[in-house]
């Protein structure tokens, strides 16, 4: 008899364990009985605070809505999102932040995974955003994401280093000008022109492609890595390597430490890097400036964009409508966007926000330069990068082409080999 009880006890314990495991209806928030709604969201880094502050603003009109934002690492958000979507939408939040280069991939890989915003009427807001941002949030002519921040490109530079080498950043108009300036700076101060994680990431190459109106893929989804523009961009980057002007850094942390210790004269990045500079390099206030990416030829396009993200709503949640309503407010409210920019350095893509006062103000940390005006003016000229749903594969192959170039392969050949591998992996055509 005694044994029998023990056995039942064990079985009960086992059953309880199982129950514990299966109780994962995930982060999906619940509509409370008293009409209160709690939205759940996944985001990373400074975006979390921006979202929370926007909710505080939203609550003035909608006191019944709350938000719980989980601060998850950028790549972990994607891993969790992919796993949840692959499992048929289990355990997903009401709102998720997705970078622009991934929107198309997600929306096409999981066509039923996200709320079609056009069906909710988001079309009416479309012309409030720059055209490239609209293109990025649209898949098969429907909006699947609400545009949030953008990354208009710029060269963040150290005034003191430029002055020591007596280089005037205003005289730098083309990449060749910048190459000469870089040599002069190296000679006078020993400092490299720019940082790069040569074998693992290609942000500078991507900005150059965007500047030249091309990308890994073209508008029709064909592979564009062998275009004369792509070859020119990679060769330009290699010219800096041959002059020993690129400092090799280890990922994001390496770039940030090079930024702080002044071992590079410029950092070519998106406007969002402002937030990191003022946060991590506090002692260098006043020593910074920005100029646009140099053009490839005199008078050529200097506008570019790197990164930026948008909000998506996983479909099937209980709070779809509440999430849509809040995000629509956030995306189209100049006030909320300016808070995100001033407090978190997230550059808005809402055209109306650029009318706000802060966009004509001088930035003390950047030596009184009107940097926001510079970035805002740049936005209208940014070309659309065509990421496609195979962007992750394109990035993988482009980084290999860059690594091969740095290990001695001719850039044109490295890009050709990468394009061929990419064609094999994606069944896409290679241009010309």
């Amino acid at each position: 008899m005694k044994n029998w009880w023990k056995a039942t006890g064990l079985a009960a314990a086992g059953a309880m364990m199982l129950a514990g495991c299966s109780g994962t209806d995930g982060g999906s928030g619940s509509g409370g009985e008293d009409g209160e709604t709690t939205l759940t969201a996944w985001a990373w880094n400074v975006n979390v605070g921006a979202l929370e502050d926007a909710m505080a603003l939203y609550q003035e009109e909608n006191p019944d809505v709350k938000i719980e934002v989980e601060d998850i690492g950028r790549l972990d958000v994607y891993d969790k999102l992919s796993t949840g979507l692959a499992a048929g939408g289990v355990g997903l939040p009401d709102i998720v932040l997705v970078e622009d280069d991934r929107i198309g991939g997600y929306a096409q890989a999981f066509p039923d995974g996200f709320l079609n915003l056009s069906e909710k009427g988001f079309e009416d807001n479309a012309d409030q955003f720059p055209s490239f941002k609209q293109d990025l949030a649209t898949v098969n002519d429907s909006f699947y994401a609400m545009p949030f921040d953008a990354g208009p490109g710029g060269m963040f530079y150290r005034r003191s280093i430029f002055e020591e080498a007596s280089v005037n950043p205003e005289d730098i108009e083309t990449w060749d000008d910048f190459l000469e300036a870089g040599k002069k700076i190296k000679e006078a101060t020993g400092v490299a022109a720019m940082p790069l994680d040569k074998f693992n990431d290609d942000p500078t190459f991507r900005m150059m492609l965007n500047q030249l109106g091309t990308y890994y893929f073209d508008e029709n989804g064909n592979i564009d890595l062998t275009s004369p523009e792509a070859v020119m961009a990679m060769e330009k980057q290699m010219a800096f390597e041959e002059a020993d002007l690129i400092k090799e850094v280890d990922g994001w942390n390496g770039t940030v430490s090079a930024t702080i210790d002044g071992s590079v004269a410029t950092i070519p990045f998106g406007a969002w890097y402002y937030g990191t500079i003022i946060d991590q390099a506090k002692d260098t206030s006043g020593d910074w400036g920005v100029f646009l990416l140099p053009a490839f030829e005199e008078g050529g396009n200097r506008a570019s964009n790197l990164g930026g993200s948008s909000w998506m709503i996983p479909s099937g949640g209980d709070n779809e409508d509440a999430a849509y309503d809040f995000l629509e407010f956030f995306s189209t409210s100049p006030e909320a966007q300016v808070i995100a920019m001033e407090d978190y350095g997230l550059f808005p893509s809402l055209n109306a926000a650029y009318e706000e006062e802060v966009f004509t103000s001088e930035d003390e940390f950047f030596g009184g330069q009107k940097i926001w005006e510079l970035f805002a003016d740049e936005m209208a000229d940014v070309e659309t990068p065509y990421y496609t749903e195979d962007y992750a594969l394109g990035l993988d192959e482009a980084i290999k082409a860059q690594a091969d170039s740095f290990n001695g392969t001719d850039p044109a050949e490295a890009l050709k080999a990468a394009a061929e591998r990419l064609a094999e992996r994606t069944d896409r055509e290679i241009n010309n």
Partner: protein
Amino acid sequence: MKQKALIPYMFVGPAVILFSIFMAYPIIYSLILSFQSGQGSNLEFTGFDNFQRLMSDAIFITALKNTFILLIVQVPIMIFLALIIASLLNSALLKFKGLFRVSFFLPAVTSLVAYSIIFSIMLMNDGVINQVISAVGLDRIPWLSDPFWAKASLVIAMTWRWVGYNMVIFLAGLQNIPEELYEAASMDGASRIKQFFHITIPSLKPVILFTTILSTIGTLQLFDEPFVLTNGGPSDATLTIGMYLYQTGFRFYDFGYASTIAYVIVILIAVMTFIQFKVTGDQE
């Protein structure tokens, strides 16, 4: 009486239920997945297409080559080192045995990701190791950015991590070799080195087989070290099949193809283990 007949099932019940949910179900589901293709949730049955695609997939073949190079170079070095250290630490002449044994075993306790990060910092272009090398007056070595040195870095890191683990297994095996064998050999004038090759190694044969199989399985599934240390680069020079599986599933969302890779790894491990059993010719 009836109750009594039920009792055994109650004991095995929880284990069977847990096993079927967390092991059997994924194993069967991924087998089904391996015959499907498409991105994300757009999966459709394509029969053996995935397996065919794998045979002509240049990146998979590169990953396979890398994995086998690591296997052929790293496993013998590691097993041999572990054997030597084990027999040295087993020597009756040695003082502070405990201290040495613990020191050699300690790396095996560290987390895979943590030690890989430390190695990646030390092996950086201007990291500690290159600073020492250039202080001695030699050229810096592009540890993580050159295709050859990136593989060498992996071999060094993995050997550091796993030698102690295998050493402990060998130490246990050494305790079973009768002392008389060594005494007799010494009487006959066999040197220490001869004793090592003619007594220690043959006596440890089953243990060596065991560690080799474990290491082979470990290398075929290798993921953490290349993921952290080199990210598979430069240009796929250190991409392993384990990493390619992860990339295919979670970076490129092709879960069907990723499952196919997983099954091919399983088949490879089975074949390799079978060959090792045959080659070492276990009599039983």
